[in-house]
């Protein structure tokens, strides 16, 4: 067979000296189980003598594609794009979706899986657009959902933002991309670098060039990545400035109770990378304290075996931006909560006025400033209006959605920011049972709250010296304070 490479090829290494993970040969080592491949090419073609146990006979004539059709529906319930991979499914199937949408008060509550008499509708809701996939038969629902999310990511990647307007403007590119992503309802190419080689993202410059030269946005060669062992990277990448940046971003998810004690807190982190390196670099990234990482998930480029044995991230990076790793810091480690909220919210039964007072202050911040602080709170329905004065920042109360948001900015430990005032309640209603929860957002630069530290980053396989950079940041994830 053709793909079987001739053995003493250029990939074979030197006798004694061998650069760690030289090029493609090393990629093959990635995460492969040590077991011998037990399957040779000999196969009995015969009919199996024993009855096939348990494999239910397929319904005749029901060979259905995984994803039959896709409908994009905007917030006002208009179908503004449809794409069919097999025979056309009438739009009327979406009526079932609209029904479910009506039943669920908010978009968030529309069930992701809706059965209809002959189809199943699986949907994701992002950027105020419902992406509704129509399927006809059993399929792992996460398969479809994950794929739809990947579609949205791809659009975002192509057009910068994913919105109804953008999609309508670029309907041809969208169509071409969708055509490449799925064949007969089964994902064909979902790696963005492969797609971008097949269909180039629209830019103003290219549009101009194309009109003049008559060239097209469509590639006529099979992207090299599609066949290689590193499908995420294209060959022949060239940069004049070779740089690799890594952002270690940690998010604190926490629930703090009334009295200020932590109910639950955990740290989730990601390492996002922006790698612009020439050729086929092979990178290794090691940590000072890899034991902190409890549960990890990798970009496919990371060699799993190496991580298992040495706790080193070894990979041939994709070109450009990508998420190298997401991790969870083991629950044994106590989480330092960097901020606290003092609150005094009370509604009185007798009068239609309530008191509202919150103060935000820093706690275990390791000497760093807390910035980008933003407080939001969903007020009970009976709240009519709020008259508040902040000591710093700006605040908005939306009387329709009853959402209070206060953009605090930086916390100055000498003068703690506070928001005070009164709440006016609808006359005649009883006081709300529960005080609103406060959601907090903040950022701390140059700090990974778990204490994770990158030890070093090395590059092999290329001659030049790249510029390397590591940045740390801690953010609030789902940080809630119950009052």
């Amino acid at each position: 067979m053709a793909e079987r490479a001739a053995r003493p090829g250029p990939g074979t290494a030197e006798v004694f000296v061998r650069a760690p993970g030289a090029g493609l040969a090393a990629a093959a080592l990635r995460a492969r189980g040590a077991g011998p491949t037990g399957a040779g090419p000999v196969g009995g073609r015969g009919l199996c003598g024993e009855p096939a146990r348990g494999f239910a006979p397929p319904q005749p004539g029901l060979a259905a594609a995984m994803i039959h059709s896709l409908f994009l529906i905007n917030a006002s319930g208009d179908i503004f794009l449809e794409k069919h991979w097999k025979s056309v499914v009438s739009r009327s199937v979406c009526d079932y979706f609209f029904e479910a949408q009506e039943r669920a008060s908010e978009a968030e509550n529309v069930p992701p899986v809706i059965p209809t008499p002959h189809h199943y509708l699986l949907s994701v809701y992002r950027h105020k657009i419902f992406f509704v996939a129509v399927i006809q038969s059993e399929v792992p629902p996460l398969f479809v959902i994950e794929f739809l999310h990947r579609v949205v990511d791809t659009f975002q990647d192509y057009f910068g933002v994913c919105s109804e307007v953008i999609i309508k403007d670029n309907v041809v590119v969208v169509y071409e991309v969708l055509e490449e992503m799925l064949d007969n309802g089964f994902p064909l190419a979902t790696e963005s670098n492969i797609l971008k080689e097949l269909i180039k993202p629209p830019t103003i410059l290219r549009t101009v060039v194309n009109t003049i030269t008559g060239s097209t946005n469509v590639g006529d060669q099979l992207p090299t990545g599609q066949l290689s062992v590193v499908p995420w990277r294209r060959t022949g990448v060239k940069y004049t400035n070779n740089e690799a940046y890594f952002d270690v971003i940690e998010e604190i998810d926490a629930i703090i109770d009334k009295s200020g004690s932590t109910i639950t807190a955990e740290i989730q982190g990601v390492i996002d990378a922006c790698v612009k390196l020439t050729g086929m670099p092979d990178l290794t990234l090691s940590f000072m304290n890899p034991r902190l990482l409890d549960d990890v998930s990798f970009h496919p480029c990371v060699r799993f075996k190496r991580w298992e044995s040495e706790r080193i991230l070894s990979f041939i990076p994709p070109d450009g931006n990508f998420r190298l790793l997401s991790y969870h810091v083991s629950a044994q480690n106590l989480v330092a909560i960097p901020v606290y909220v003092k609150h005094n919210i009370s509604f009185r039964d007798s009068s239609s006025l309530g008191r509202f007072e919150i103060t935000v202050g820093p706690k275990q911040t390791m000497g760093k400033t807390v910035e980008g602080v933003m407080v939001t709170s969903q007020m009970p329905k009976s709240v009519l209006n709020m008259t508040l004065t902040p000591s710093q920042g700006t605040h908005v109360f939306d009387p329709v959605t009853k959402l209070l948001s206060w953009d605090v900015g930086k916390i100055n430990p000498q003068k703690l920011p506070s928001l005070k005032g009164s709440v006016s309640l609808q006359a005649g209603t009883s006081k709300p049972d529960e005080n609103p929860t406060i959601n907090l957002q903040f950022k701390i630069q140059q700090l990974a709250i778990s204490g994770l530290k990158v030890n070093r980053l090395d590059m092999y396989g290329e001659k030049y010296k790249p510029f390397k950079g590591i940045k740390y940041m801690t953010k609030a994830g789902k940080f809630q304070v119950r009052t």
Partner: protein
Amino acid sequence: MSGNGLTYSEQGGEAAPELAQEAAPTVTPSAPAAFGLFSSDTKKNEDLKQMLESSKDSAKLDAMKRIVGMIAKGKNASELFPAVVKNVASKNIEIKKLVYVYLMRYAEEQQDLALLSISTFQRALKDPNQLIRASALRVLSSIRVPIIVPIMMLAIKEASSDLSPYVRKNAAHAIQKLYSLDPEQKEMLIEVIEKLLKDRSTLVAGSVVMAFEEVCPDRIDLIHKNYRKLCNLLVDVEEWGQVVIIHMLTRYARTQFLSPWKVDEVVDEYSESNFYESDEEQKEKDQKLKTIYTMDPDHRLLLRNTKPLLQSRNAAVVMAVAQLYWHLAPKSEAGIVSKSLVRLLRSNREVQYIVLQNIATMSIQRKGMFEPYLKSFYVRSTDPTMIKTLKLEIMTNLANEANISTLLREFQTYVKSQDKQFAAATIQAIGRCATNITEVTDTCLNGLVCLLSNRDEIVVAESVVVIKKLLQTQPAHHGEIIKHMAKLLDNITVPVARASILWLIGEYCERVPKIAPDVLRKTAKSFTNEDDLVKLQILNLGAKLYLTNSKQTKLLTQYVLNLGKYDQSYDIRDRTRFIRQLIVPNEKSGALSKYAKKIFLAQKPAPLLESPFKDRDHFQLGTLSHTLNSRATGYLELSDWPEVAPDPSVRNVDVAESAKEWTGIPGKPKKEKPTEKFYSESEEEEDDSASTSSSGSGSASESEKEDEDEGSTDESSGSSSPSEESTDSESDSKESAAKKRCRAVNESDSQDIKKKAEGISIKRSTSSSSDTEYTSSDECSSDSKSDSESGKSRNATSNKKEEKPAQDRKTPKTQDMFLLDLDDFCPVTTPVAVPTAAVLSPSLAADLEGLSLSSSSVIDVTMQVSVPTKTHELLHRMSGKGLAAHYHFSRQPGIFGDRMVPVQVTVTNTTDQKIENIHIGEKKLPPGMRMHEFNPIECLEPGGSITATMGIDFCDSTQTASFQLCTKDDHFSVNIQPPVGELLLPVTMSEKDFKKEQGMLTGMNETSTTIAVAPQNSTRLVIIERVVKAANLGVVPSGQDNIHRFAAKTMHSGSLMLVTVELKESSTAQLIINTEKTVIGSVLLRELKPVLSQG
């Protein structure tokens, strides 16, 4: 809906039928959409038509873009078909692609016109550009026109053997499309699937398995031979393919392996609490507990190879692995998936929803799995309601005595939530906790009673319902609560709650004798305004009171019954009639009224508060059916474990497995009879297909001969190597072993065959050399035939052989490497060839050399080896706490793949206790080096020793391979440093070839030295023996007495290594080594020096 209305009018006449049959969109012959009303549309289309006819590409492109825009909006563009289809052969690739898009959408409706485009695709299918071939196949197979089914079939067949894996992948996709278009083609398509299943490209694997699932999911027999390959490829398959393959393998495994759960049911509790432990430890524990059950190595292979995928960034892959572990892994191991599933809860709402549903089902059966993650399920006020309720569900499932107090505190917060639907769900959850955990029942009840004074009606109503259920479970002393609830009746308006209170009062009316009649009085007044549900309960209450306290309530009840008699709802009228007949005695009433009291006031069983996820587990997790809790179309049932494992040897690919040799599986279920039959049947099939497919061998006699031959080889192998172990005494494994041997013969060069032939001839006491010739060649042909099924690669080999029977003893180099390139196990037989044979043969080979017809340079790896007896110490028994290990190089080629140096490790237990679970732990290999571990040794008796074989690819370097040898309790770091002589694979070649090769390897590639040779070492036999012992070299026949030649190639890169020993007078000798790998060469030179000089 305004959008829809608009669409219908735009689609014109076609929309109506489509609306009617949303389900099965059929081929509707399109009526021209040009009604007078829509003239503007037609006009617009006219101008598009003109643009398409224009000679400029840019105009065409513009037109196509607008048309695609129309399609995207769901507008009908079908009338443009003739104009568009003309451009299918456009040179501009973007226009072409857009035309493809159009074709796929409308070809079904315009079948005749669509045929115009077919020839273009047929031409494109032959294009040198693989992308064009692939996309042509994609479009061709997507245009759903039944007439072209034969063309599609042909195209698929051709594409399935395309050189480009990308095209083959598309062929796999096309299979499904063709199948849905014409299910009649099933048989032919299965053939293509079968062929593609054997494909080794990771690109193809996912797609073909998808096609398999679609077309013939019941043909598990097609999977057998590919099972191990699929398992091993899995990590490298693209993520979507992984999901499909994992789901398929889950179903496969459930039909093929024995249940690993039988014994661990007993130890469930224990193992659950300990699921932090590593995989190995657990495995071992299982082993300890299950004396009878041993996991099939293939079963283990699947579990082992899917585990790394839990780290995938793709939620669908993680979920797929999780369900695989849930359905297949021993219960103690399934715990490893929980961490990854909890991780998925960080992602999007939709993913959370599905994952939480699956966790909910899991957490009912095995609480322990998710207990440590309890806090991850705490609800945030920002979660959507559906997520909140699912989390609540899981928390309730996980509740136990230990965590209930924390949970209840958490629930208190939830009850106050602004999201009332969620608050109501929380109350139900509290009720469930109260029934499940008796310690907190009273606390919960009190808490719920407090909630009765809540301001929110929904909360109160839900509390009433739950309290009702709780009271029913323990009615003893709750008179007070019932009284309290009776008071509430005035304020509560929610029907369910009112009905519940009424029912409670009726049921326990004897406990509240004073209140009950009063309640009846009040409700009788409001009867007409009540909800049906409440009315029924009023009737019930009346009946019960009538029976227990007729003095006070007779009139009231009659009044209520009268009201009921004229109610609007026939249910209530029915009930009234029924009750009246039962309780009010009159002449007509039968015997039943005597029992009225028993009927109405019977002891009712308490309701069970159960999770709605309780019965979901009969659906495979991670499926759509599970999510919907109803069977989705096309759902494939997961079968129960078989009672007796089906024959595991069906998965063997041509060679038996080494694992079985020494694990000595105790109590392995016997299953010979069906196996034998099955195997022979398939054999016949194979023969048939072989005779049809392979060229040149069509006669039935051939296959007979084959059988015969196989018998004879079997015999001979049996006698020549009595030590060959085949514990599983099945004839098929023996057969395959024999086959393997036969092929091995085939692989080796002429000399080797001759040698073998010689052996046979001796056995049969035939002296004629022509006879032996015949035997050997016959063996080869039979072998090639039986192999011819085995995929194209080998097929090619055998075909070539048959074409040139004269040459078939001399296989060209490339082929040879191919044949050795089996990543398979093979039985670790003790080498047949004794060292003396190696010494004797060259002369014979030299004699026969003249017979060779081939003049081409032939360099082949020899089969024979002389095994150095020298063993090296791996682990001393002192440092190994009683575990000693030795290794030696067994020099058997091709056991673990052609680049692995086989190493036999003998472990000995010098302690007086059993040592369990000896395996290889963490490896520290230099880059590039690979290691094939031996299978873990379950148990080593005191004083016993076991030999296991492992393979190491040293990358042609003498760097040490460091790894850990682990037992159940200990880890010992050990390392193996190979002598350079073991990095070689002996080859044989003629003297002529040797000289030719040597001529090419001069200059820098040559190293030489002069050495003193001890006098006793100067005879030919001794030199050969000593050199061969020191390095794994093949002997080259030599014409001169004073020159001895040896040849080998390096294990990893296959570079030649030529060694010449030239004896000079005065006991010196010139030692020359020619090789490209100069470093190895010089090291080898250094090592050979003392070999010859020492005495």
